[in-house]
């Protein structure tokens, strides 16, 4: 029962939200020049611009977007944040030396690790691997999963049966276990090896989301209208289905991005992620665990940054979902 109530109220809100453009129409259908009340007609507002309008007013979006922006800059130009190399280590500098918490943004700010390298510098330089992997896995997953989901959903029949079974098969492989099996067969593992491994195992979620929303949109009246005009499959897919199916996929992808960063960190932590000399948060956390009793800060700071990053992407995805949710419109 509450559901029905909610819809009713939503309807009322929607009815009241829609600004009535001010054409009055006389009984013979000709526009009359008198205003049927309502505010001055607003600018053209697409659903995307409406969503953007909502987002700009959301603190959770602003905070997460700001953090992500800083992370992206860190990944692109780490030199802006620190002057020391993450690899130059002075073995005389002990990791037991306490961090100088008041020396903001200085190499000694967050202390040193066992090799005498600046933890702060390593965190900055480690961002790149995480961001590249997170973003490129997401892009690959959206392309691969999106295409497969769209084809399966739109064409249905045997193609859907085949693609859905393939999706199920991949979904059956445990994500991390599968990635581990894949990665141990490589001697050196670069950012790209890890990316491919995660993308190969991660596309299934997107494919399912895409398939579901395409099936719903395929049956909508506006697709029916396009078909009755004689529109070809390509036009229907690109102009009608894709723009409308994109919203849920974007949301899922944004939330998944945080997950891919986690996965990379976990793999590196287990020693089968990026191989040396690559710098990554997961790898540093792995190396730090041996001294956790004497120097917990070596493990703590990269972990905090990792958590903040993941949380930011989750928050962003959440905010975007709220803004794109057509039910609130």
């Amino acid at each position, binding site marked *: 029962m509450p559901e029905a109530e909610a819809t009713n*109220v939503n309807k009322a809100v929607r009815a*009241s939200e829609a600004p009535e453009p001010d054409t009055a129409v006389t009984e013979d259908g000709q526009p009359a020049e008198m205003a049927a009340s*309502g505010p001055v007609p607003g600018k053209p507002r697409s659903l995307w611009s409406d969503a953007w309008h909502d987002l700009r007013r959301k603190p959770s979006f602003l905070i997460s977007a700001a953090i992500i922006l800083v992370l992206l800059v860190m990944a692109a130009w780490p030199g802006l944040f620190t002057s020391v190399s993450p690899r130059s280590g002075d073995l005389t500098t002990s990791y037991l030396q306490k961090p100088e918490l008041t020396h903001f943004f200085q190499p000694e700010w967050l202390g040193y690790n066992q090799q005498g390298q600046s933890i702060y510098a390593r965190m900055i330089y480690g961002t790149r691997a995480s961001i590249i992997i997170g973003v490129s896995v997401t892009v690959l997953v959206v392309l691969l999963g999106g295409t497969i989901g769209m084809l399966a959903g739109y064409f249905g029949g045997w193609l859907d049966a085949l693609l859905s079974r393939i999706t199920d098969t991949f979904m059956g492989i445990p994500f991390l276990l599968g990635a581990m099996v894949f990665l141990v067969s490589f001697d050196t593992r670069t950012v790209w090896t890890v990316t491919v491994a995660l993308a190969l195992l991660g596309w299934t979620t997107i494919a399912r989301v895409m398939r579901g929303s395409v099936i719903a949109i395929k049956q909508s009246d506006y697709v029916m209208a396009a078909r009755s005009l004689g529109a070809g499959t390509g036009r229907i897919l690109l102009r009608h289905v894709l723009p409308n199916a994109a919203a849920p996929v974007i949301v899922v992808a944004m939330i998944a991005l945080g997950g891919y960063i986690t996965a990379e960190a976990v793999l590196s932590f287990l020693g089968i992620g990026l191989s040396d000399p690559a710098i990554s948060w997961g790898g540093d956390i792995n190396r730090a665990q041996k001294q956790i009793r004497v120097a917990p800060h070596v493990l703590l700071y990269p972990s905090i940054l990792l958590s903040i990053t993941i949380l930011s992407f989750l928050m962003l995805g959440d905010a975007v979902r709220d803004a794109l949710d057509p039910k609130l419109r």
Partner: protein
Amino acid sequence: MSIEMTKAEVPGVPLLEVRDLHVEFHTREGAAKAVNGVSYTVDAGETLAVLGESGSGKSVTAQTIMGILDMPPGRITGGEILFRGEDMLKMSEEERQRIRGDKIAMIFQDALSALNPVLSVGYQLGEMFRVHRGMSRKEAKAKAVELMDRVRIPAAKERVNDYPHQFSGGMRQRIMIAMALALEPDVIIADEPTTALDVTVQAQVMDLLAELQRDFEMGLILITHDLGVVADVADKIAVMYAGRIVETAPVHELYKRPAHPYTKGLLESIPRLDHKGKELYAIQGLPPSLTAIPQGCAFNPRCPMAQDVCFTDTPPLAEVLEQDGGPIGGRASACHFWKETIHG
């Protein structure tokens, strides 16, 4: 305050009274004034039809009475809802819940989404008795069968364990009615109860509702956009436009001699079944946006009779009299020119 006191009939006090209710919704464009000073009363055994188009505030008023208004974005900005003379808006949440569960029930338009698809109808009907009356599972089920019989669902005993999707639209709406009746409420609010149904089924459901209302001596509020559907069962009608009541009248009176230009236009724009007719009369323009209701009379941009005064002064809901000044009884119109509308 004890329950006994609430139950007592207080002479001269209406069963349910809405007094000068104001409800707003917070929207991006500003406050949408969905209900702007609505007042009406329902007595036991009486049927009030609230007629209006989408956005007229008819459903929001009902949701406010039932306490199912989403707040936020909704906000009650004024007015009283009196149940047997007690303002429900001033009661504690607990007291309010007791009245809303026991004394006032609601029937929704879409029975399929109002029923839980994973529970049998017998369970959902019985739940009312288990929760509110503390009955055992077995007693509750027996009661459920009895109710299903009462709303004339064939083979109620066999069907009590069926799920909502196994019933047709008309039967589901009967189950909704049974659910509303379960605790023998004093007032039932039906929000477009037959809109989702086919015409041949509409008549069955409406007749059933009218019959039950008579038998149980309930007050019934019928919310509708279609005067034809409720005309047979309603005693009086309140017509709503842009969050206000613009006219009230007994059913027959309203159709014969509407006293508000909006009502008049609405009735004239309905095509007729008994002859073909020429071009339809159409009210020009659109209902106003609730964030920018016109000054003066809200209907002024669409009204063929509008004069200067309509753009400056909001007409009060004033009593409508016969041409010679005699009373008509139960009629009121919120139009500066009601005399010209009804008698001219």
